[in-house]
């Protein structure tokens, strides 16, 4: 008897957990993805074999796994949205999705996810997209190893690579994003992680936060974008070990901070940006162990920035280290290494005996009259900088690094 009951349960168990696999290919019984989805049961796997599928507006409303064989391509024909997930617990992997339609009124995406929990989007290649992956009101999603690209020329007719509106606990890693408007865009997203992504050659930002609190991004590389990363109206953002490189143009930033509070910025590299960090209305931010190398301006503070602490950063060969537009200073600079520092260290404790003034008179003048920048590196400018250094009149006199380091910091 016992044996029979066990067998019964075993049978029941195997029955209920049995998820069938549906194969889709051009010569199979099921030759379109839409057809496969309509006959699939909850938890089934749809295996899409090699081939070109010209479909769009595919709506998935039950938990499924969509697995693509290498060479499986879904071509949206530049009409509209391609895949729409209106369910949670799904996986999509290994598909190549191309040609999303451009619209000025609708957010067409290659993969659109609405109100979903627990999903994985991985190993997909999205090309010529408007929006790449568009996620709305979702939780606990993982987006990894995808390659999203387009060849957009202007902001108005382009979308974002990974766009999340209203999300929580998302994880985005090891993706490559290029030729889009924003590589990754977060709006009202909380408790999420972004790491090891490469976002380059985008029109606007590599990564963009709006009203998104308590997020972390690290070990990413942002290169050649309109601006590297923009963090706006957000709190408790941690940014570390990122590379901001070559964001070079007449209005380019490595990192743009606007109305942000309580952030941690450490161990990042800012290299050859027009402006390394542009801070506006950013308060209680700790900048530690960052390296600013060969930027136009390393740090530009344009207003209402309070209680920022700059400690142990390297400022190396920037045209201008710091630009400041007010005479009041509420920010602290301490223990940084400045390549332009020429003081001495008599007691050999590694800390310069003379304070360093990072704001030069010239950068003050340039703030007032941007055209004056044509006089950069002229002898006259060197002379006025020197005289201002000796006796500060125009620049905030308490804006000094009292303990500048003598040697560059290597981690």
């Amino acid at each position: 008897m016992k044996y029979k009951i066990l067998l019964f349960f075993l049978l029941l168990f195997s029955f209920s957990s049995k998820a069938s696999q549906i194969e889709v290919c051009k010569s199979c019984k099921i030759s379109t993805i839409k057809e496969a989805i309509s006959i699939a049961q909850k938890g089934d796997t749809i295996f899409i074999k090699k081939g070109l599928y010209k479909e769009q507006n595919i709506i998935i409303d039950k938990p499924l796994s969509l697995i693509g064989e290498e060479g499986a391509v879904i071509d949206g024909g530049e009409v509209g949205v391609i895949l729409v997930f209106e369910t949670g617990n799904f996986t999509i992997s290994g598909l190549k999705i191309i040609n999303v339609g451009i619209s000025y009124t609708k957010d067409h995406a290659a993969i659109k996810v609405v109100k979903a929990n627990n999903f994985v989007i991985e190993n997909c290649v999205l090309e010529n997209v408007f929006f790449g992956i568009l996620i709305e009101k979702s939780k606990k999603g993982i987006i990894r190893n995808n390659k999203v690209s387009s060849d957009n020329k202007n902001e108005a007719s382009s979308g974002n690579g990974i766009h999340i509106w209203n999300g929580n606990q998302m994880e985005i890693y090891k993706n490559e994003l290029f030729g889009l408007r924003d590589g990754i865009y977060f709006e009202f997203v909380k408790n999420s992680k972004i790491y090891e992504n490469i976002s380059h050659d985008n029109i606007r930002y590599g990564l963009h936060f709006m009203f998104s609190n308590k997020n972390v991004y690290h070990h990413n590389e942002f290169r050649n974008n309109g601006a590297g990363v923009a963090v706006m109206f957000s709190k408790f953002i941690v940014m570390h070990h990122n590379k901001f490189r070559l964001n070079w143009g007449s209005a380019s930033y490595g990192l743009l901070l606007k109305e942000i509070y309580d952030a941690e910025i450490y161990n990042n590299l800012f290299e050859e940006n027009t402006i390394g960090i542009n801070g506006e209305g950013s308060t209680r931010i700790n900048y530690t162990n960052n390296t600013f190398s060969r930027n136009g301006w390393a740090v530009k503070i344009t207003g209402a920035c309070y209680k920022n602490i700059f400690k142990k950063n390297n400022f190396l060969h920037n045209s201008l280290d710091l630009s400041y537009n007010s005479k009041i200073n509420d920010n602290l600079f301490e223990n940084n290494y400045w390549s332009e520092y020429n003081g001495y260290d008599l007691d050999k404790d590694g800390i310069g005996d003379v304070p360093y003034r990072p704001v030069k008179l010239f950068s003050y003048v340039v703030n007032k009259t941007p055209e004056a920048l044509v006089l950069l590196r002229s002898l006259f400018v060197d002379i006025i900088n020197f005289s201002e250094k000796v006796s500060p009149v125009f620049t905030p006199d308490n804006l000094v690094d009292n303990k500048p380091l003598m040697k560059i910091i290597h981690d």
Partner: protein
Amino acid sequence: MLKILKYSFYDLMRSRWSYVYFIFYLLLGFVLLFLNNNVSKAVITLMNIIIVLTPLIGTIFGVMYYYNSKEFTELLLAQPIPRNKIFMGQYVGISLSLTLSLVLGLGIPFVLYGLFRSASIFDFSLLLVVGSFLNFIFVALSYNIALSTENKIKGFGYAILMWLLLAVVYDGVFLISLIFFNDYPLDKFSLIATMFNPIDLSRILILLKLDISALLGYTGAVFRKFFGTNFGMVFSMSVLVFWVIIPVFRMNRKLRKKDF
């Protein structure tokens, strides 16, 4: 003219000042590269030096040479040689020897440190071209001053003043007018204002090829649009040529009437 050119050239070589100048640049090049070990960064530092020093040395050399060789010049004038040939020979002789010192002095260390393998070879050659132009311009300007002033001390004073005006005071006035007329569009003005000072023009030419071209914002866009194109490059080079031709032309006119 060629004979006199050759004579002035060898005279300067014999006086050892060319060697001193040459060795100065040689040492400078080596020290810079030794400290930096990076050709492109050394180019930036070098620019600061060339922009200030080349005009100064050109000015001083020009005035000094004129006054020192005055007696010999007068002797030459007694011979049946056209005046302008004598002075042109001297002028080209000085400028050439200074330029040679500059080009060789800086060229040798940079070539040894692998200039040809570096991407900054174009920037470096632009630097040398601009430096040579500055030599020719400032020797011509100082010769003008020396020709117009009999008194040695006065001549020196004027020459130094001229250098000071162009290297420092001009930029000061430029900056003040930029700040003063802040409310007006200033991009065209600053573009034109740089044309009237060979030092500024050279500085901008090099800077736009180097690190800060994007830094200039809107003005930068105007500048880059102008200097970045082939037309702008040719135009600014021809402005530099004009800066040589006009003083030389004036020198020749002055010569015809001057009573030695």
